[in-house]
């Protein structure tokens, strides 16, 4: 029998199984709640991801165009920029959000204040304004992208968490709880069966005893002759345990 736990059907095990069942049901309810909370957050994030991605498309386009404007005004400055890189002035800090016990990394843009004066002076002779304008456009883009990165990691983490949680919920729902219920039913059934057997045995013993007593009475009657008055009394004398017989032990 695969759909129940292998156990000895006794009252103790029954109590244990019942405790496990309550635990499982409670756990199921909690996990379900968690899954719901996660899914709720997940849905919000999904919406935002799609929006932000589309917004990013626009922002990046604006950025690319600002770069074109800068190139128009300042000439070819890409190499200068590539070569003046020293230390990042824009970095991200990873923090953790907690949604129903799931840790979600969240990024935050930080300006380190590292000297990027080299960038400030790009296009000093001509087109510097456009370069700075382009710089700002890309700063906006970075901000948006950092936000998007947060959303995206949240998406991946939540996706994973929801899958695990759902797996657990389903495992409880479809495997553990039915199995426990089956086991309990089985134990109950076995116990009932035992009880019925016991009852039947008692009946049998009683009937047996009665038969023996009857035969005794009959034999006495046969030996002593019928004594209509004394028959009953004799029976009682012979079987003192029939009426108050409660504990028969084999």
């Amino acid at each position: 029998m695969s759909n129940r736990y292998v156990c000895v059907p006794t009252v103790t095990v029954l109590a244990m199984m019942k405790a496990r069942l309550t635990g499982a049901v409670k756990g199921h309810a909690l996990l379900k709640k968690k899954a719901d909370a996660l899914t709720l957050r997940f849905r919000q994030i999904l919406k935002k991801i799609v929006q932000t991605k589309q917004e990013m498309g626009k922002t990046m386009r604006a950025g690319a165009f600002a770069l074109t404007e800068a190139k128009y005004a300042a000439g070819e400055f890409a190499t200068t920029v590539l070569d003046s890189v020293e230390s990042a002035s824009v970095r991200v800090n990873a923090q953790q959000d907690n949604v129903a016990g799931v840790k979600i990394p969240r990024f935050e843009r930080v300006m380190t204040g590292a000297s990027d004066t080299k960038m400030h002076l790009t296009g000093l002779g001509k087109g510097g304004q456009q370069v700075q304008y382009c710089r700002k456009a890309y700063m906006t883009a970075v901000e948006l992208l950092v936000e998007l990165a947060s959303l995206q990691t949240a998406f991946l983490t939540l996706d994973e968490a929801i899958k695990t949680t759902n797996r657990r919920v389903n495992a409880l729902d479809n495997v553990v709880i039915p199995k426990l219920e089956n086991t309990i039913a089985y134990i109950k059934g076995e116990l009932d069966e035992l009880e019925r057997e016991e009852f039947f045995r008692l009946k049998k013993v009683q009937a047996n005893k009665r038969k023996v007593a009857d035969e005794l009475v009959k034999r006495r009657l046969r030996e002593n002759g019928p004594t209509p008055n004394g028959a009953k009394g004799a029976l009682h004398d012979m079987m003192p345990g029939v009426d108050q017989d409660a504990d028969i032990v084999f």
Partner: protein
Amino acid sequence: MYGFEALWFNIKDGYLDGVVRGHRSGLLTTADYNNLCQCETLDDIKLNLTGTDYGPYLANEPSPLHTTTIVDRCTEKLVDDWNKMRANADEPLGEFMDYCTYGHMIDNVVLIVTGTLHERDVHELLEKCNPLGMFDSIATLAVASSMRELYRLVLVDTPLAPYFSESLSAEDLDEMNIEIMRNTLYKAYLDDFAAFCRRLGGATAEVMGGLLSFEADRRALNITLNSIGTELTRDDRRKLYSNFGLLYPHGHHELAAAEDFDQIRSAMEKCPPYQAIFTKLGFGESQMLDKVLFEEEVRRLCDTFEQQFHYSVFFAYMRLREQEIRNIMWIAECVAQDQKIRINDGIVYLF
């Protein structure tokens, strides 16, 4: 002086004068730009350009085209024109033409130098150099590992050597911000170019004087505008201004002290020619300034063709062609990035 110039000019430089004026008539007109603006794809642009002087250069470009390809091919056309003329030029026209390209040379040197200091591949760097500013020993720039060595080994042999030695000490070379170095060199170059034109005398001196002082003033204006809010001090700024031009010297004092756009504006407006430019701008509108200045430059460059017997036409041709290439780049970018609403913001019509 005018009459005498005409005596020898056509004997010596008449041919090239004719050639450059011919090239000038090949520049795109407003009608051409209108057609270009109607283009939907880069291939359309190519098709439109095949009817112009750029035709042979773009004809064999396979699709898909990139804006950079178009710009490169157009630049190639200018470079070919320029080199052909340079090869035929007699002195001092040859020297004059060399002077015109020193600006690009400065850019190239700066580019190679920074690239080398950051251990970049030399061939990659050479590809990015402006072909007009190429010189024979440019590839050897990459052998140097420090600025001082660079100067000692390579730069002394280039035409730029005096600019380096005049304005930069060895210590400067090691730690100077590359942009400041570029602008210091450019200032030295402009001063030198202006002096050279004065030596040439005649109509060349007159016309080039106007063009160069505009260029110098524009640089001064840009440097001021772009250094607001940076760590560049007044004196640093002051050092980057050229020693001639309409703003020299009083305007420079005011510019050096200027802290915002309106102060710059009031400094500039004291010069009548610039007053006209600034009245076109609303208060606080520094964004449009570049374009207005480009337009003014183009107007001045076009005017040079009205005079005879001087070398400025070569300079003007180069600058106009460059502006035209910028226009083409702008149009191509607008088309490629699907931003056609902005297309008119960047075109400076030449004629």
